[in-house]
């Protein structure tokens, strides 16, 4: 297989597999957050802050994969 074809495949696999984990992770975080808020509506503010923070951390991992695939495609 020639180099360009392999490169395109690598780009697809990098972001495809890389988005798998964070996607599941963010879903779990959101679900737990909703559950926690329903149990204790008064703590909503604190739960919200932690949720946004945790989602940003999880998304950052997906962004690392995206950066790798962008570098592969454009450099």
């Amino acid at each position, binding site marked *: 297989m020639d180099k360009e074809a392999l490169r395109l495949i690598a780009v697809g696999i990098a972001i495809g597999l890389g988005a798998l984990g964070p996607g599941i992770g963010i879903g779990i975080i959101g679900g737990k957050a909703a559950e926690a808020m329903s149990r204790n509506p008064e703590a909503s503010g604190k739960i919200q*802050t932690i949720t*946004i*923070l945790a989602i*940003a951390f999880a*998304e*950052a991992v997906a*962004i*690392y994969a*995206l*950066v790798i695939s*962008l*570098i592969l495609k*454009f*450099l």
Partner: protein
Amino acid sequence: MGIMKPMHVSIAAEKLFNIGPLPVTNSLLVTWIAILLFVILIISIRIKRNIIPVGIQNVVEYVLEFFYRMVCEVFESEEKSRRFFPLVMTIFLFVLLVNWLGLLPGVGSIGFYRGEGEHLEFIPLFRGASADLNTTIALALISVFLTQIFSIQHLGFKGFIGRFIKLKSPLLFFVGILELISEVAKIISFSFRLFGNIFAGEVLLLVIIFLIPFVVPIPFIALEIFVGLIQALIFSLLTLFFIKIATTEEEH
């Protein structure tokens, strides 16, 4: 005119000109414009200052107070909040403005051609500063180094070393080493999170507008506005939390 490529995507910011030995890139230009905008905003508020704020002064005061209240909640002490608030607020405002400036029409599309024939390339005049890895690495370095300096100021030099080298038990020693590695990882994580989000957003907008230029890009631009706000918030909030962790004394 030479061969015009349909989409211009470049991970590195393009150099516009040199000042002496230093290159000036299009993202640096946008950084300067952002600084200029802030200076103009603050000067215009300070000139006609009202005790009861109206208009722009009201908006600025609201934003600052909102953040200040949040910082006060995180640190219980007033003195610490006053100390760390400027860094957190500046990071938030700068990253927010620079993210949103990258969405304006003309940024990334207005430019000139350089080179001849085969090497003809398009150089945009403006580029969102946070889509340049240099800017985000600089911000991450500032944030992490200032966190260490604040930690030294509040815990003393021995306390600061004690965060990383714990000699009480082998397990704690390992935890200390992990802390050290995690500080370096924070620099990488901060810079790549912001860069990846904003640059990927730019590429996404470019591709969508290239495919269907009418009506369809609207929700994507709305998404990018939202992402710009969230990333600015995340950068400053994480800086805040890391400062809080770095300046709390160890409980025994």
